[in-house]
């Protein structure tokens, strides 16, 4: 079932949680709502579920305006960050709850309910826990039970609010893969909220990036990661190095340093922000080289597949920190020492007009 929201606006006192949000969630997709805390993503999810009312705007489920429909009748499955399992009921009773609460006319018999619950517990691979109580389960198990409980009433859409937020890193990763697999089996339109960019990029078909109650960008994980449209998206998806500069004669001037060959056209004299990811920077020991940005080596961290070099800005970039990701061989070649002055040479640089950044970030 498709979900559409139109011109949603939500205000909490003087805080604007949602500012004119219009989005379309096509049928059968798994979409991630991604953004920092307080960006309005959870509010949006709760409005779609009917747990919260928007001040204005509408929620359209399957082509029907559902703005006034009670959460009970929206047929949405909602999964909470802290599971919200009924502690006084066994796992079986938790999953059976939705079926048992149906009006007498449409309520299946206990036998049918039992069969269905066991099928769902098999789906989440926890059939052997049917008689336990939630307090006897691990966090990952509880969340899978919560999911089974939501699926029991055959919802038209599945909404997950930071479903893995309360779990430790390893279980998180496992459940992420598992959710993706489950979605591929069920093809139920799903939206999940997360502040973890890795989670969103790894699991979702499409990612909606939000900040300050506005949508910054919508696209496939590949699109938003490789073609960020705003400085916020660039900065939010992965670590980033930021330079303040001015474009002149096709060159970028950062303080006393110059970078050649920008590849993008900017009017002379425009103030810009330049972004480069850690793996898009190289280090050159020869400080006499013309193109490059001066920095001082602070620390070299050599573990894992790549080594990381942390540097401090000097001159005009004083007080700033940079991070460069290099292969261990390259680090070995450079044999950097702490306090050494080097030049940073970007292989790729993304420029944003300075005023655009201001406009976007002070809503």
């Amino acid at each position, binding site marked *: 079932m498709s979900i559409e929201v139109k011109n949603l606006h939500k205000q909490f006192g003087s805080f604007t949680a949602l500012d004119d949000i219009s989005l379309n969630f096509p049928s059968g997709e798994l979409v991630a709502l991604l953004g920092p805390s307080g960006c309005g993503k959870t509010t949006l999810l709760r409005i779609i579920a009917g747990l919260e009312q928007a001040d204005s705007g509408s929620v359209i489920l399957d082509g029907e305006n559902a703005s006034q429909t009670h959460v009970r009748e929206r047929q*949405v499955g*909602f999964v*909470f960050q802290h599971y*919200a399992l*009924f502690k*006084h009921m066994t796992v079986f009773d938790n999953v059976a*709850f939705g079926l048992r609460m149906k009006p007498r006319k449409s309520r299946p018999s206990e036998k049918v309910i039992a069969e269905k619950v066991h099928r769902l517990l098999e789906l989440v691979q926890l059939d052997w826990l049917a008689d336990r109580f939630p307090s006897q389960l691990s966090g990952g198990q509880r969340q899978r039970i919560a999911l089974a409980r939501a699926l029991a009433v055959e919802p038209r859409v599945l909404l997950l609010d930071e479903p893995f937020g309360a779990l430790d890193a390893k279980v998180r990763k496992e459940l992420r893969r598992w959710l993706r697999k489950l979605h591929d089996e069920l093809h139920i339109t799903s939206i999940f909220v997360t502040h973890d960019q890795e989670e969103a990029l790894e699991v979702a078909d499409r990612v909606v990036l939000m900040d300050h109650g506005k949508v910054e960008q919508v696209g496939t994980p590949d699109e938003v990661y490789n073609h960020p449209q705003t400085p916020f998206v660039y900065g939010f998806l992965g670590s980033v190095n930021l330079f303040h500069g001015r474009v002149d004669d096709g060159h970028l001037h950062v303080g006393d340093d110059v970078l050649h060959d920008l590849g993008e056209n900017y009017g002379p004299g425009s103030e810009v922000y330049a972004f480069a990811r850690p793996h898009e920077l190289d280090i050159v020991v020869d400080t006499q080289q013309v193109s490059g940005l001066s920095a001082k080596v602070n620390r070299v961290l050599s573990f894992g597949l790549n080594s990381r070099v942390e540097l401090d800005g000097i001159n005009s970039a004083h007080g700033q920190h940079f991070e460069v990701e290099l292969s261990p061989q390259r680090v070995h070649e450079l044999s950097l020492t702490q306090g050494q002055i080097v030049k940073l040479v970007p292989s790729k640089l993304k420029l944003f007009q300075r005023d655009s950044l201001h406009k976007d970030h002070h809503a």
Partner: protein
Amino acid sequence: MSSIKSFSVLPGFGLSMGFTLVYLSLIVLIPLSAVFIFTSQLTWAEFWAIVSAPRVVASYKLSFGASLAAAAINAVFGLMLAWVLVRYSFPGKKIVDALVDLPFALPTAVAGIALTALYAPNGWIGQFIQGTLGIKVAFAPLGVLVALVFIGLPFVVRTVQPVLQDLETELEEAASSLGANRWQTFRYVLIPIILPALMTGFALAFARAVGEYGSVIFIAGNIPMVSEITPLMIITKLEQYDYAGATAIAAVMLVVSFVMLLIINALQAWAGKRTGRDR
């Protein structure tokens, strides 16, 4: 002995347990056993004659009946009050919250006099009730109930309140997203969680009501066979220097109250086990 000792980061089980037993003996057990010792001066026939006298039996009925009814009323309305205090914010909430404790703090005689003045046939409220409904409140068993409801209210509110405060609203949201209506959410999600605390509150309110004397004697009117409570019977015997008789009735009260509290505790443990809390 070593079998009940298990490792703990805080030492001192032996000492604290010993202290607990001595303290409990001094404060509770020894005074209570005196009741039975005094009673044992009587023969079984004398004892039975005293405790089964029609006037005394009538007082048992009123005391235990009115106490149970008052505790039940308080369970319902105390829960409602606690719910309102936890869930909603309104002007003067702090004052309402403080008012709940007033029956604790007020000398019971004051409460008794105030209630009697209000519900007496010529009192503010009493004249309307008697005038329009023809029901007599003060100087009748109903008056006893009113006084017991008054003094038992804080027990239910104060035991249920913390549980309601800890209750996640997410549980209700989850229930309604699963299609449960308001009544079903209340019945199948909220009540099972609140029930143990509610039963504790009920038990406390009941225990307090059974032992209440001060506020009741003013409003009850103390008409033999109609509105006499058991504590009054005990006092009456004491005033006649019939100590053995007084303690005989006291012993009956003690045993009945103890058995009732035991039953409530057992119910609570059963409810706890059923919901996996004790596992």
